[in-house]
């Protein structure tokens, strides 16, 4: 690793999209035989940088050197020709083709009579063998393999062209611990063969387990490049979030003064609630009128836990007691009937229905709860719509406008209105303030505080730790799809406390495993 010149050297890379500077003078180096992790929060510019390197985006400024030669990528084919291969987060393979066909797709060995399948399969076997996958039967359809093995096949496919650089974009997001260990064995094997590997993940433990070097980006800017052994977790997180501890502490003290002491029977109690591959079995309790914050980095399993509570995904372990009674919540319909509402983090695909009007979007959940044969009259619909458009200050307050023409913040407010209209006892809000402007954010936070004061139990999920600390009575810290700690909120708790919990626990674990 030391001494050899970098295989990829990107200097001063800038890329602008209309209205946004996605990357601003970012430097990035990749050496042969190293695993290099790219870190940063959502929207920090990680994927933009990767797309610049794979030729998807053209760079506005800067220079890309591959093996010391300047390259101008006009498309992905140019990047591949330069020896850069990519495996994306979602497996991009053909489920109904065989393993061998998938590995060699587009690189089949041709003979005088078209494709020479024998030679093609031989080539596929060679590639799989270099990754330690020689036990796989090439003729089996891909669909019979687990997602983890499919991921390895996808990497094999990328290795067919013998690239010098391999980019792995969140390859572990759908794998369990054993599968990740297998993947890492393969990655180390490739690294030792001299391949330069660029690795993107949200899992901190994995970063420390596999990578030699870390580059941190924040808001499209370059923060720094560090050898992994010289950067401890706490420093890494503060570099990603962009606030030193003093700032984190001062933000924490802005927390609302009221603190709700739960009393009596919990509204909802869950034991061992979990689902294989997405959420480790978790215990939790929720009381009326309390705000429970779920904190953790992206990909820590917050969303997955929330979806289990709502029945959006079916739990495969655990028991839930609602108001003291054992209850199965396996579908959103059942959850709504039990007065639980859930606002998804994916506003565009799982929240708004783009082509319906504001009014129709707002009344949809209430109407679904009542059943279609008991329609809300137009008068009732108008009254509900007017109520929430005013209460939540939606602009423009035009109930008949298709919701797709509203800004993100106003769409979010309409969705909040949709769930409030069902009069829930438990409201789960997954990233309700992501990607919306400061004013709308403050209004949504105020609405959450008001709901809790009225006795609604709220689960509040946000990547902004300050926001979680400010709003919550209790905070569950999550990491790697499991509950790490539960904190009673109070003057001693700040965003820094949470960061410390995430980082410390990881350090301990690393100490154990080594």
């Amino acid at each position, binding site marked *: 690793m030391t001494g050899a010149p970098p295989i990829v050297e990107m200097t001063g890379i800038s890329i602008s999209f209309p209205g946004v500077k996605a990357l601003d003078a970012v430097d990035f180096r990749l050496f042969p035989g190293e695993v290099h992790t790219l870190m940063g929060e959502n929207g920090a510019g990680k994927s933009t940088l990767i797309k610049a390197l794979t030729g998807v985006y053209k760079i506005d400024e800067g220079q890309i050197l591959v093996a010391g030669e300047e390259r101008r990528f006009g498309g992905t084919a140019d990047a591949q020709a330069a020896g850069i291969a990519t495996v994306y987060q979602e497996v991009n393979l053909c489920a109904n083709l065989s393993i061998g066909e998938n590995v060699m797709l587009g690189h089949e060995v041709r003979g005088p009579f078209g494709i020479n399948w024998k030679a093609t399969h031989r080539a596929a076997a060679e590639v799989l063998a270099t990754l330690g996958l020689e036990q796989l039967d090439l003729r089996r359809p891909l669909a019979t393999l687990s997602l983890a093995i499919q991921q390895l096949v996808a990497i094999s496919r990328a290795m067919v062209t013998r690239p010098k650089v391999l980019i792995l974009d969140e390859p572990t997001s759908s794998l369990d611990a054993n599968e990740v260990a297998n993947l890492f064995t393969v990655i180390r094997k490739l690294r030792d063969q001299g391949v330069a590997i660029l690795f993107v993940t949200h899992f901190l433990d994995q970063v420390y387990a596999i990578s030699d070097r870390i580059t941190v980006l924040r808001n499209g800017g370059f923060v720094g490049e560090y050898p992994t052994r010289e950067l401890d977790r706490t420093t890494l997180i503060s570099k990603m979030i962009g606030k030193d501890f003093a700032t984190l502490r001062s933000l924490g003290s802005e927390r609302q003064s009221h603190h709700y002491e739960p009393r009596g029977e919990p509204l909802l109690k869950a034991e061992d609630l979990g689902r294989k591959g997405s959420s480790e079995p978790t215990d939790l309790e929720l009381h009326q009128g309390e705000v429970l914050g779920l904190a953790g980095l992206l990909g820590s399993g917050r969303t997955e836990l929330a979806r289990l509570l*709502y029945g*959006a995904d079916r739990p495969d372990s655990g028991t839930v007691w609602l108001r003291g009674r054992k209850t199965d919540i396996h579908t*959103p*319909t059942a*959850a*709504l009937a039990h007065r639980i509402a*859930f606002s*998804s983090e994916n506003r565009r*695909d*799982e*929240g*708004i*229905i*783009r*082509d*319906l009007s504001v009014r*129709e979007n707002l009344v*949809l*959940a209430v*109407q*679904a*709860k*009542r059943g*279609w*044969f*008991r*329609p*809300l009259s137009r008068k009732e619909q108008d009254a509900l719509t007017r109520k929430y458009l005013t209460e939540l200050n939606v602009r423009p307050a035009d109930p008949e406008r298709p919701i797709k023409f509203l800004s993100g913040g106003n769409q979010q407010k309409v969705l909040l209105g*949709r769930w409030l209209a*069902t009069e829930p006892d438990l409201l789960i809000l997954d990233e309700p303030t992501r990607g919306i402007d400061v004013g709308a954010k403050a209004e949504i936070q105020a609405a959450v505080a008001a709901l809790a004061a009225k006795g609604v139990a709220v689960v509040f999920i946000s990547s902004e730790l300050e926001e979680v600390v400010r709003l919550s009575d209790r905070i569950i810290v999550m990491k790697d799809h499991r509950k790490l700690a539960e904190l009673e909120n109070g003057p001693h708790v700040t965003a820094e406390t949470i960061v410390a919990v995430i980082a410390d626990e990881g350090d301990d674990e690393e100490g154990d495993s080594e």
Partner: protein
Amino acid sequence: MSDLAARLAAGRGAIVRNQAFWGVIAIAALLAINVVADPGYLSVGYNGETGRLSGNLIDILRAAAPILMIAVGMCLVVATGGIDLSVGSIMVVAGAVSMELLRGMDGSAGNAALTLAIALGIATALGAVNGFLVSVVGLQPFISTLVMMLAGRGIAKVITGGQNTTADNDSFAWLANGYVVGVPVVFLLAIAIVALVWLLVRRSALGLMLEAIGMDSRASRLAGVKRRSLQLTVYSVSGLLAGIAGVFATASVMTVDVSRTGYQLELDAILAVVIGGTSLAGGKFSIGGAVIGGLLIATLDKTVVFLGIPASATPAFKAIVIVVLCLLQSERVRSLFRHRRALRAQSQKEAVAA
């Protein structure tokens, strides 16, 4: 003054953009062609003795009834993002069941009612099987209903033993051939059923739910919309309406032709829905549009016969009319025309200036 003109222009724009408008134009154009061929084409006669209206227009309305039924059912299925290829086959099953039952009974009105109930029950059940395959099993609508399309005609042949069964029952035949205040019963029934369906979907929240599923099934699931039971309902309703269409089609001649009754009518139904401005991608739907589309298909069928277009050339003629209509409805084609008109106007102006 100019304000009024602007509003008129805006109103005209809205009408022209409404796809069903072009269906109306197409019906008018076909009728005009027929009038050119025979100036008396549109005349409606009144027979004082029987109190019946007669004429080509009345024939078109009568022929439109079965198509209206399956077009409306198809419209609801398409709204959820699905498709029902089995309506033609369910028609022939309903027809076969009716004729076989009536053949073995005396011609009383009670027997006609019983037969009707059994035939429509079976048609609804077949639709429910489609709905089950789509919503519970999770097969693609195209495949599920394709299977039913193939199976349905087979079932009909088994029921009649491969024969074209004929039966006698005046009450049953009246459904298709009778008249009330001079107008064919079959058309009145069709319109009443369409109105009923319209009330059902638009006066309850069914329409909104179907559109929500068709537009974004993930978001509507999280909003608590019961996709499964709604899909089951919608395919069952489509089956029921296809059963009614089958009764209409067989009652008029009191014979079921197992290889021709309802043959390829699913394609007519899909065309009627598309002509009516409902996108096959699902979402917003228009029952009124589907009715106009159904009337256009019926007019087209009658025109083909009236103009004496040879049977072998009929499909081609139909295809041409529908392609032209789809081109007129296409936003891109219309903007191309606008662009050319603008260019021509500009060049004329330049010529005048020079």
